[in-house]
């Protein structure tokens, strides 16, 4: 006999919700992109809230993210970078407020993949550096301490301007040259200072003064 009663409806509903839950768990959640926020983090404070993973998992999200970072390190050691980055994305989606996650991945991209020891081709190194910087920009909209990410961005941009290994004159080098990189670095330190890391203002001052860069608001852009 066909059961058309309440029980059947309830079990269908439960089954449907179960499939939706499975779909949510399997979806490749990635941290949202934040375009055009390279200058200041203040404007994106209101957007920082709990991710879907955090809402679903609650306090367990942080633990799950930690487990994913362990897997990330293992994949990097094994040379399986594609899987490593996929795992890192999931860790960041689970706990985007964990600032260390953003800095850990950015460090790997900029100081690992883009290092002279790892990659002889300057064009490829440039791409890895830009990937790391883009990651930090995204993170500033979501991390718990965006000032740290902005400060790191400033350091990286300062570093590349002094890094002769980025390429001889015939290589691509940094778009816009050293001046553009230093200007971007100063802006990043300014954003860090605005967000609460006062050392950022100090670094900004050193850069602008030492390189005769215009004050914030007067620059032509990166």
């Amino acid at each position, binding site marked *: 006999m066909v059961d058309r009663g309440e029980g059947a409806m309830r079990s269908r509903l439960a089954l449907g919700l179960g499939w939706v839950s499975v779909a949510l768990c399997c979806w*490749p959640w990635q941290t949202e992109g934040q375009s055009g926020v390279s200058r200041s983090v203040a404007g994106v404070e209101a957007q920082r809230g709990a991710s879907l993973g955090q809402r679903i998992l609650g306090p367990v999200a942080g633990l799950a993210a930690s487990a994913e970072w362990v897997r990330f390190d293992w994949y990097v050691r094994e*040379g399986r*970078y594609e899987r490593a980055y996929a795992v*890192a994305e999931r860790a960041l989606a689970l706990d985007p407020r964990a600032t260390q996650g953003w800095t850990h991945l950015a460090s790997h991209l900029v100081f690992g993949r883009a290092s002279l020891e790892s990659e002889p081709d300057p064009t490829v190194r440039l*791409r890895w550096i830009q990937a790391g910087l883009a*990651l930090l920009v995204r993170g500033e909209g979501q991390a718990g301490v965006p000032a740290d990410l902005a400060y790191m961005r400033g350091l990286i941009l300062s570093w590349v301007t002094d890094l002769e290994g980025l390429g001889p004159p015939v290589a691509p080098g940094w778009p816009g040259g050293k001046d553009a990189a230093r200007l971007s670095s100063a802006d990043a330190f300014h954003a860090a200072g605005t967000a609460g890391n006062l050392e950022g203002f100090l670094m900004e001052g050193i850069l602008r003064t030492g390189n005769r860069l215009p004050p914030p608001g007067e620059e032509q852009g990166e």
Partner: protein
Amino acid sequence: MSNPRDASRERYGELFSLWVRRSLDPAWTLPLLGLLAVLSLADWTPTALRASGMATPSLRRGLEREALWSVALLLLTVWTAWHGARIMWRWREGEWSWIASRPATAFRVWIATWAGASAGLGLLLVAMAVVVEVGTGLGAPTVRLADSQPVDDTRLEPGQSLDIPWIGKPPMTGSLRVFLRSSPGGDPTTDVLVEAQRGELVRQAKLRLDGRRPVEVEVPPDTPGPLVVTITNTGGGALALDGGQPLDWWKPAGSEWRGSCSVVWRALIGLSALLGLAMGFGGRMGAVSAAGLAAACLLVATTDPVVSWIPFADLPGVLTILGEGRLPMGAHLLLPLVSVAVAVGSWWTAGKVQ
């Protein structure tokens, strides 16, 4: 009184068809295929890889294939263990009454049930492959793992070389890949030169090694003579040859979609064996316990990829190869026999259902 059995024998085709149908229950298969279709719309390429510009179309498709098949097989494995364990539960709940009172032989009923359920799983896997390939876009011609040769763990100091002669049928085309690692004790990075030489013809590949990386060198074209792979540490740090990963020969093969065919075949064999196991355990315990125990056996099988004749054992490795946009080697020839043997053996595990 005429006894129709004098003129005929029992037939098991209808029972086989019944279990094909039960394995394809739309209440389960349609949501699963729908889920795969929805997941295939997502972008499975990590942002960092995309931003770096290192994600080739082939790699993107491979990552998507690997992700979709991983999800699909995880769900299907859980369901298969449950489905197999439930068979015995259904028999105990009453279906055995109308089966056992027939002159049908119990063992043949068991085999017909297992074969029908497995055939249904096979059809479902084919449907899943279609969804995956439509989602990823079928792909382009790629390389297939043609052969592997074990290598020993070896440490090379700066300036040292290691010759690895290829044993067996010599590769005539394609490339050879070996995994190397910068070894502690000196500089954290080093440069490596890998050469493949056959006669006068040499092909080279150079790499700056930081950590563990695969190095791939082209196979010299069809010329007489043995093939020798030489690895030279040209940098300032120590170099280690990773013995855990063999020297692989990759040769040009068909399109990327054939990777899904490999997965379907291996998964069918593995799931059939899992089904048989779950049926066997289901004869001795409740459905939940039987399903759990069968799934635990599966977990054990996948932790040792060296034993390639165990169903499911090499599937994680196959998915990794798919994730690189490549095709795996053909499955071990004994695999289908192992699956049948597991199903037959489970008949005794269940206590020879009477």
